[in-house]
């Protein structure tokens, strides 16, 4: 059955369905109960599932993740909400030294099916620590899987798949796109969680994006088309493991590649992608793999974020540079 949903509502429905499907699913976080979360993603869930399934926790992120570890050891599937990206760092220790490693350390005896939901990225005019892009920290940690959704369909299915998945998943939600709408067929067969997807076909340049930047990349492709330039846009969807097969296929055809993300460029995901694309497409490349991202500065005050965040013009500028080689 098809419904028009925002990303936020799609997540809400996905969480609801996951909780109905599995009584071991427990949501944990700050303000997720009565308030329904600061973005209302858990709206109404405590009312329907009770305070034991939707737990308003004390205000301490390490506590949320550390107790989730214990619950997972006991057979539960905790879904932790981190209120904003910049607040994940107090929990960082538990995520990278414990959640990521316990499965390997216990040689598989202790499963760790923990989902860490993080509203990430900028563009909503927030104060500091509310607009970060921490994906590289997590993608660099073996034992974690990281996904970033960009649309209501992936939000609806992705959250359910992440919860059902046996490994810990850092689930990045593009907060500035929470209110973007799309049609979701709740009876469809979903795509695999750890797979990237070509979302617009083209011949001249392959543009890679994930999360909030997919929309920006599509806008750039639209604008480029008016100038007679054909961009192929790939939504990575998964950051760890990276699914580069569709990317490699695409770049071998187009010969050019631009990676777009909000995070600072240095040592960001674009660096990894550039290395791998170079390794696999060296003989097809007409230009170096170019990166468009945030500057290597702390996330700026909100009056400057339009300058900081990649927009379609900066993507098009990179496309021009790629074409000039």
């Amino acid at each position, binding site marked *: 059955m098809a419904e028009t949903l925002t990303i936020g509502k799609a997540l809400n429905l996905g969480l609801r369905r996951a909780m109905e499907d599995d009584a071991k699913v427990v949501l944990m976080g700050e303000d997720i109960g009565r308030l329904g979360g600061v973005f209302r993603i858990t709206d109404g869930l405590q009312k329907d599932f009770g305070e034991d399934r939707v737990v308003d926790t*004390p205000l301490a992120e390490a506590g949320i993740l550390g*107790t989730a*570890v214990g619950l997972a050891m*006991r057979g*539960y599937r905790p879904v932790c909400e981190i209120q904003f990206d910049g607040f994940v760092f107090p929990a960082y220790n538990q995520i990278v030294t*414990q959640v990521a490693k316990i499965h390997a350390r*216990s040689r598989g005896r*202790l499963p760790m099916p923990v989902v860490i939901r993080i509203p990430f990225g900028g563009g909503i005019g927030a104060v500091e620590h509310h607009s970060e892009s921490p994906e590289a920290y997590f993608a660099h940690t073996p034992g974690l*899987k990281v996904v970033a959704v960009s649309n209501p369909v992936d939000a609806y299915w992705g959250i359910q798949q992440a919860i059902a998945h046996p490994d810990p998943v850092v689930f990045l939600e593009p907060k500035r796109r929470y209110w973007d709408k799309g049609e979701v067929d709740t009876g469809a067969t979903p795509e695999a969680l750890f797979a990237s997807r070509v979302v617009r076909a083209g011949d001249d340049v392959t543009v890679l994006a994930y999360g909030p930047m997919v929309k920006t990349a599509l806008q750039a492709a639209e604008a480029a088309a008016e100038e007679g330039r054909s961009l192929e846009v790939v939504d990575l969807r998964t950051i760890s493991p*990276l699914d580069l097969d569709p990317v490699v296929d695409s770049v071998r055809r187009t010969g050019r590649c631009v990676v777009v993300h909000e995070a600072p460029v240095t040592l960001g995901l674009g660096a990894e992608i550039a290395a791998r694309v170079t390794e696999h497409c060296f003989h097809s490349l007409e230009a170096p793999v170019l990166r468009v991202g945030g500057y290597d500065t702390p996330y700026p005050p909100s009056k400057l974020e339009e300058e900081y965040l990649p927009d379609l013009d900066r993507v098009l500028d990179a496309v021009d540079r790629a074409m000039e080689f």
Partner: protein
Amino acid sequence: MTTEVVDPVPGAGAPHLPRQTGLVQLLTPEGERVQHPDYAIDVTAEELRDLYRDLVLVRRWDVEATALQRQGELGIWASLLGQEAAQIGAGRALRPDDTAFPTYREHGVAWTRGVDPLHVISLFRGVDNGGWDPVATGFNLYTVVIGAQCLHATGYAMGLQRDGAESAALAFLGDGATSQGEVNEAMIWAASFSAPVVFFCQNNQYAISVPLERQTRIPLYQRAAGFGFPGVRVDGNDVLAVLAVTRAALAAAREGQGPTFIEAFTYRMGAHTTSDDPTRYRLASELEEWKLRDPIARVKAYLSRTGTADADFFADVEAQADELAVRIRRGTTEMADPPGRAMFDRVYAEQTPHLAAQQAQFEAYQAGFEGGGH
């Protein structure tokens, strides 16, 4: 009789910390049985002899492992010397359905859970990350990051509570760990959810080289009051008192009365690990003072004085210790290195294509050496 109670002067600061405030003791350093109004315990002669055997065997294990490290067979060893009573007392208070969440020094607790000493040693030899089954033994893997396991124990206890299981979690920590934010978060969670968890702090007086006074200006057990649950200080060198206090706390937790914080007041007789040098940070006189409170000597004195054990028993325990030492030595030196491919196994429950490719690459590379005559 119990040791004199001296309450701290509020705000008095570090140097005047009372050393033995409110200590629960059931067996004095001289080996005399004493009573405590809150912690009566009935133990049979056989149970007492078993506790003695445990203490002697884990000390021998520890001494042997320290020697193996000195001889280059182990990368490092975290000695429990001096803390045997705290660990055996706490471990023997657990029921089979309870779960312990250790740091990296709870070899004595591992012993009480039936974990093979060689599985613990394999961790320090660098063969694996702990070879025992944490689910089957109810003894979780060691946790090296200080205090992280206190949250795991609390979350696990919340799970027990949801399942209606009448069991408890026992979290181990040291005095230094009480400074960690995560330990404090664990106590807040435990209190807030009335989780069936007991925090068992072995106050061995030093966090590597830093003395207790740098962690706290009040006795550690008094901190529990700030979280809203009971704190008890027990003589950590008195196996009977530790057993009684931990048993009571675990029973309360199982009955839904929520957490307890136990401070086992003890002393690490050895180094933090074989890598440090305690003569740099503490005085020989302090060590001598603590030797008089040895956890094994007092049980032996009691068993001898009361005729609960005879010379044959003590000789038999010594013989068992010798056998254990031989088994540990032989098992350690014969321990095989793990296959290289093991590092790729079980990073994930569901292997990723990228890691599978790296593993294949690794194996092909290794096979090249084997086939290539290197």
